[in-house]
């Protein structure tokens, strides 16, 4: 039986949905499951880790692990992977996962794959599926070692209902800190903002929003809908939106139920970050904009005219 170790995705003290999604998939495959949690002050997270579907919980809980540092983070995962004798080590889609997975693979001499969307285990043989070339193709990849470290693409697996695990806590000893890469400061993202990766609705703006007035206008719509508020690269480069708001291949990859692309033309790098969304609405002045090729619903029009109407109409149907 395969043994799958899922790396808990913890952000600002909360367990993210990807952990339950990955564990659900692991259980559906019929694998033995464990989770490894790395951080500080995590005792209150134990019930969440169990309920997410893990049967063993490796805990690396230490004040020195409060701020992310890829070296010590990877050491904890390697420690848990060895103790659990894991065949598969899965990270949820996150910057920490992308930074740590290649280190873990190098240390274990395991194969490594990022952004996987599916996995097939046939006896000893592991195969995965993943996109490549800016999502233009899919690759089927054969793993030639018995062990695979993978980062799972956002939205690839779904959390199943009624899944739970059993509590079996194993305490890991804290790793030495990385003295050659010292984190001096964390400039936190604004608190209270909705995490793009978790939001059920994401609304992003592009060049069509032009300036701060355009940003503010669309932000109001996002506030109404309790939606994540994202951006194309153009508005980040223009200084109107923060780097961490960029949706696209190089920024956040999102897969919400509804994605609204407002004033975004649809460069392939942007499409690669959002084309896993369930439903896409595009608003753009240019009827030939590439975004309409992927949109389920398209409104050809000036966003400054359309967005206020959108707000009013949505308010009406929601009241």
């Amino acid at each position, binding site marked *: 039986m395969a043994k799958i170790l899922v790396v808990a995705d913890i952000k600002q003290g909360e367990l993210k949905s990807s952990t339950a999604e990955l564990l659900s998939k692991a259980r559906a495959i019929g694998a033995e499951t464990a989770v490894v949690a790395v951080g500080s002050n995590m005792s209150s997270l134990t019930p969440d880790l169990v309920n997410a579907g893990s049967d063993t919980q490796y805990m690396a809980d230490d004040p020195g692990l409060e701020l*992310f540092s*890829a070296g010590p983070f990877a050491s904890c995962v390697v420690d848990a992977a060895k103790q659990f004798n894991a065949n598969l080590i899965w990270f949820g889609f*996150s*910057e920490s996962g*992308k*930074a740590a997975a290649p*280190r873990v*693979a*190098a*240390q274990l*001499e395991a*194969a*490594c*794959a990022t*952004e996987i969307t599916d996995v097939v285990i046939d006896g000893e043989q592991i195969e995965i*599926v993943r*996109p490549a*070339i*800016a*999502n*233009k*193709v899919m*690759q*089927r990849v*054969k*793993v*030639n070692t018995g062990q695979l470290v993978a980062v799972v693409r956002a939205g690839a697996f779904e959390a199943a209902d009624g899944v739970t695990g059993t509590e079996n806590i194993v305490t890991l000893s804290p790793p030495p800190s*990385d003295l050659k*890469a*010292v*984190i*001096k*400061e*964390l*400039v*936190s993202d604004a608190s209270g903002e909705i995490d793009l990766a978790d939001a059920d*609705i994401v609304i992003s703006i592009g060049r069509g929003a032009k300036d701060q007035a355009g940003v503010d206008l669309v932000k109001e719509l996002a506030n109404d*809908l309790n939606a994540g508020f994202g951006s194309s690269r153009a508005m980040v480069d223009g200084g109107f939106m923060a*780097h961490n708001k*960029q949706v696209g291949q*190089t920024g956040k990859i999102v897969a919400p*139920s509804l994605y609204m692309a407002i004033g975004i033309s649809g460069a*392939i790098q942007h499409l690669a970050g959002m*084309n896993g969304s*369930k*439903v896409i*609405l595009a608003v753009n002045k240019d*009827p030939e904009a590439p975004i309409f*090729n*992927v949109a*389920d*619903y*398209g*409104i*050809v029009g000036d966003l400054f005219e*359309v967005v206020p*109407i959108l707000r009013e*109409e*949505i308010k009406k*149907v929601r009241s």
Partner: protein
Amino acid sequence: MKILTTVKKVVDVELTIRIADGAIVEDGLQYVINAWDENAVEASVQLKENNGAETTLVSIGGGDNTDIIRKCYAMGIENGIHIEDPALEKADSSIYAKVLQKVYEKGDYDLVITGKQAQDTDSGQTGIMLAEYLGLPCVSNVIAIEVIDEQHVKVSRLGDAGTERVELELPAVVTVSDSINEPRLPAMRGVMMAKKKKIEVMDLAALGTSPEEVGGGAPKSEVVEFMASKTRQSGQKFEGNAADITTRVVDLLVNEAKVL
């Protein structure tokens, strides 16, 4: 400071990619420098200009890489190494990293700068694995590099919780995001000078290693099939009176798509 930058020649992602019989159809493809590596080159050249560094690039595989290496020369890179060996045809990230390890060990570098991923595989592993094999500190997804002194740089990285500022002891490896800079367009004079510059071409033996040592014959993973992506179909597009079509679309989002 001696800087090593890696550049990969990759398929141009802007063009249509066709698949037949589980493989990419070569006909009609064009190959370009990996965009993230272009950011790495720009970052290296800026460090050279602002802090005085010696810049070297290395490119692995890709056949005739003269064009992309000359482009980097024209941007301001001083030395170029091209590693070409039939044993690297099926190389995975780990093998690339082991070859880079050999290049690094020959050169006594202080800083390695790579793009955070290559556009053909979108894997994002090689630079990080290189650091791991070398036992060097590494920060990925970097958006700023600042030299503190001969032994230290401070980098900013886009992490999950915000921007992380990390002080790195050199030698070190960083992988850069495209947010770090806007690569320059080479000036005509640079382009002319680049044509005269030498490119050092080596196979694995010349590099002082062998296919076995870098794992060339036994990739840890290999692509067995390419498939077309599930392409989204374009749906319903509405033009006309803004109020009418917006009202109609909201109705569809509520009653047809059921997402509002």
